[in-house]
């Protein structure tokens, strides 16, 4: 499982890095960034889905 943020849709609500701080972080303007290569470590799948299902802009995809 891998997560990806669509920078065209992301508006920096920050739900992803609030809910899944191991998978996402913010840049200096508050937009969401995937940490590392976006591969979700085993056991973190639920957290990844939580971030996806709370992003108001539907900017996060699971690949």
């Amino acid at each position, binding site marked *: 499982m891998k997560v990806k943020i669509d920078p065209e849709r992301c508006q920096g609500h920050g739900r992803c890095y609030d809910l899944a701080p191991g998978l996402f972080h913010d840049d200096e303007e508050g937009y969401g960034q995937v940490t590392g290569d976006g591969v979700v470590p085993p056991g973190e799948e639920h957290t990844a889905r939580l971030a996806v*299902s709370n992003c*108001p802009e539907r900017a996060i995809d699971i690949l």
Partner: protein
Amino acid sequence: MTSDSRFDQQEFNDRLRTRTVGVRNEVIAGPVSDWTTDFSHAEPEWAADPYPIQDDLRQRCPIAHTERFGGAWLPTRYEDIAAIAYDTDRFSSRAIVVSNVRPPLELAPVGGVPPISSDPPFHHDARKLLLPAFTKSAVAHLEPETREFCHSLIDGLAGQDVVDAAHDYAQHIPTRVIARMLGFPPEDGPHFREFVESALEGVNLPPEERIPRMEKLFGYLLAQIRDHVDNPRDDLTTYLINAELYGSKLEPGHVAGTMSLLLIAGIDTTWSAIGASLWHLARTPADRERLVADPSLLPAAMEEFLRAYAPVTMARLVKEDMRWNGVDMKADDWVLLSFPAANRDPAQFDQAGEVVIDREVNRHAAFGLGIHRCVGSHLARMELRVALEVWLERFPNFSLADPAAVRWATGQVRGPRTLPLRIDRP
């Protein structure tokens, strides 16, 4: 004598005057005859409880209309509200608070209070100036001080069995924080409340009354700006005075407009969110007891309060005559962008009308959608969390002292303005 000529009194006032002209319409106020054809968010019935009205409209007439305010629309489906928020080509942010005056077209794309009043492409650049100061990590620095301040407010309530949680607690928290960020004297707080009320409430008052109030706000801001030009310091006011766009310093109206936006958007909204959350907990003992027993639920509960009691409704102006989702919109019609109605649409949320404090899937739109997403959302979330943590820690047992005495603000920002709570001390 201020060395920066942008902020000379005369020059500044002349520029300010141009923004107070606009197209006026006849003021229609008083009880609503039919919510589908004559709605008004400025009447007491709406302030007291807008949710049944919105739910009813969503089923019967999902894009309601009114002749008031010179013509306005009220969509109540999430889908329509999101579509308008994303469609900056056809809906302008030139004015975002519905009143009986439409600001002149020449004000676009900057608007009076950038970036909230700005349209693309200017909007992006004006917004970018603010973002770094409002990231999650930037606002985290303000948390210890905010917590200490909340404790001092509670200390001040010692010995009272009934306290007004809106007036004596919620109100002061965002006021103190934003004064600190802008570098204004903390004791000026009471003025800010007056500024907020004149900007957001009383939209049906005659312009002759509204204009002098706005002039008072800008007079205050100009005095602060001039003081910062003479004594620069590490705060947002000095930052905006020195900021540059396209190779030159900002227009004086941009500096003052953004400051007034931060002051007004920062206070009323967060005050409302804190108050509405406490109101819910006061009348829902099961939720209160659960949160007291397990504070780790607070982040999810907070998002649910923001969804269910979203404080902010914005507005747009229709750019050109058009047929839109089944209705005939005319150029310069207002459109109310009710994020509160979007957040209670059953097509988007399960159990939309209920408060589920551990809701897992919560794509609420309390902070807006699209390019105008609230710049202050990380700050507001920090303030709301700290305010609730401190309150619940100090006052785990409380209830509504007099449900009939609770008074909600009228207009586009809704939250309790009077909230008497009975505190049961151990």
